[in-house]
């Protein structure tokens, strides 16, 4: 059996060897991290955003790179998933975007500070994390089984293809809804349907009524009231007009003003 001295040598020797290896790997990591994290893109805005992130302890509720607390969503890919415009509106007043949900702190950031936070999160989203967060392996299987993730498919005319007006981006809709194949990555999961075919379910007036105050139509809805936060009353009309204009059946008269205007 080992003597006490041998045991001591095992301890000291093992520690020295493995700590040595650890130091070498640390140096190597230092040399590689700048490339893996696109360190050249760490602008002053990103640094300022990181300081805001730290001085408010956002990590005390959220995870970033999977590190932090488990009370609020993982934020590594949030810019990609939600879009910058959505984030700008959200951070100004978190409770307005998720009424009745678990609470985030309401910070009184300036627009510049919000830009910094977003720049930081955007940089984080592009770091090569060796595959994290993984694509959910069972998502496709579930969808193939026809399990709806909140989106109810409906039959009807195929919506038209058109460029998406800016209001859908600035108004944050695209953060939750898929429109013309864009956006909606995270919103589909809380049951925000793609908006292209909304004309099959709602008339122009119903759309206006809905957007103006979703909770009035459906009290337990997860869609926030965005009028006054991200869009104006006039934009509600603009949105509704555009959404119904995607209906190929009614589109011809309204959607083709240009040819109609040509005198024969």
């Amino acid at each position, binding site marked *: 059996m080992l003597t006490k001295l041998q045991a001591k040598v095992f301890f000291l020797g093992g520690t020295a060897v493995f700590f040595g290896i*650890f130091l070498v*790997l640390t140096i190597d990591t230092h040399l590689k991290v700048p490339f893996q994290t696109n360190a050249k893109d760490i602008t002053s805005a990103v640094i300022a955003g*990181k300081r805001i992130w730290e001085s408010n302890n956002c990590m005390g509720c959220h995870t970033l790179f999977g590190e932090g*607390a*488990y*009370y609020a*969503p993982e934020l590594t890919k949030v810019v990609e998933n939600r879009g910058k415009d959505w984030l700008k509106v959200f951070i100004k007043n978190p409770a307005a975007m998720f009424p009745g949900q678990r609470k985030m702190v309401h910070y009184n950031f300036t627009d510049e500070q919000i830009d910094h936070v977003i720049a930081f999160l955007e940089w984080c989203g592009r770091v090569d994390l060796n595959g994290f967060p993984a694509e959910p392996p069972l998502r496709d299987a579930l969808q193939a089984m026809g399990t709806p993730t909140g989106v109810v498919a409906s039959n009807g005319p195929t919506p038209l293809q058109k460029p998406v007006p800016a209001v859908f981006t600035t108004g944050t809709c695209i953060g939750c809804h898929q429109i013309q194949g864009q956006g909606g990555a995270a919103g589909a999961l809380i049951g925000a349907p793609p908006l292209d075919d909304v004309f099959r379910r709602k008339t122009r007036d119903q759309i206006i009524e809905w957007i103006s105050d979703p909770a009035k139509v459906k009290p337990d809805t997860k869609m926030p009231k965005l009028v006054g936060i991200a869009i104006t009353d006039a934009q509600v009309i603009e949105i509704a007009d555009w959404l119904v204009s995607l209906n190929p059946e009614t589109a011809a008269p309204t959607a083709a003003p240009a040819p109609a205007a040509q005198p024969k």
Partner: protein
Amino acid sequence: MKFQSQKIAYWFFAAAMLLLVLQVVYGFIMGFARIGMDGLHGWIPFNTARAVHTNLLVVWLLLGFMGSAYFIIPEEADRELMWPKLAWVQLISFLVVGVIAIVGYHFNYWEGRKFLEIPRPLDYLVVINVLAFLANIGLTIWNGKRYTTTAIVLYFGLLAAALLYLPGMIDFDNQTLDSFYRWWVVHLWVEGVWELIMGALLCYLLIKLTGVDREVVEKWLYIIVGLTFLSGILGTGHHYYYIGAPRYWLMIGGIFSALEPLAFLGMAIYALSMAKKGGRRHPNKAALNWTLGSAIMSFVGAGFLGFAHTLPQVNMYTHGTLVTAMHGHMAFWGAYAMINLAMIAYVLPILTGRKLWDNAASSYAFWLSNIGMVAMTGAFAVAGITQVNLERRMGLDFLAVQKEIEIHFVGLILAACLFFLGICLYIYNFWRHGLPTDEAAQSDVRAAEDLPTVS
């Protein structure tokens, strides 16, 4: 107790008990917030509650370690503490820094890095404080009549813990590097040098409680801490999988962290076999329960539950979910909370001369807190596994999944009540011991231990 200056340990322990209660109170605040009862959000938002909860944990454990060192070192070195007054200054200033930090967290004053939330200026004060502590016990050992392995391992554990605090204070603009060095503190503490401290305390308790020959106990101590560093240093890699560090960490971290449970397994086998071998059955059953309990629960919480999510293939999905919280609770409890409670259970009768070690309160304290903690771990486990499956594997929305698992937090709170009852009983027993007395200080250790039990 042989030396007057050992009495200071009592006050470190008393402060630790107070902070433990506060820690649990903030744990309840978070538990209730998670079932929608977040009425305190305006004053104590979740991030405040969490920072207070985890920092109090670390502070009370450190106070426990320091108190234990102030008790053990004079005895092992066979002389009075170098500067008993400095120990008092150190205790009070440590508490003051802690209180400022914790009050600060309620006013958004912090550094915002998990477990290292203490703002920078206070970091420096902590460093000075710990230096004073290390100087005090270091010089006591240096000027002592004998050097024992237990004392040396304990000292180097504490010294290394202090040194490893420093990398956590370097500032980086790159989040990945920031996180890289945060783990030098967090991981190399709990899965490295704190294990040295735990090993030394365990060793001391086993020598005292089982009467097995010091040479044998200390030989195994070296082997166990050898295993700890052999696996634990490169095992740090299990935190480098997905933070933007090179891919080779998946392999290195995976292999070496998978070996980490060996050290904990070694610790459990070591404690149990020494207890079995020990000829002298010490009357302080409570201390022996906590000692063996710590060796076993740390294997379950750190070794077994740590292993459960340490392989990169698994960690890809469990990383940053409640599965981590499940492991964190039982690991900290088993390894570090219980070893401190074991030290306290052993030391108090000696300091106060009252042998309250064989009564209903002390055994209920042990069983209720442990059953409560196992149940809490179960609640976190069910919540965590459900979260992993629904959110990470099926791709459902975070908040929707949280709604689904809310019910498990009702379970968590119920389990926590049981746990807290155990803690209250422990503290009640602590209080019944009264203050350290000079008569106890004069009587020899062995003589004190042979006295008949009173309750």
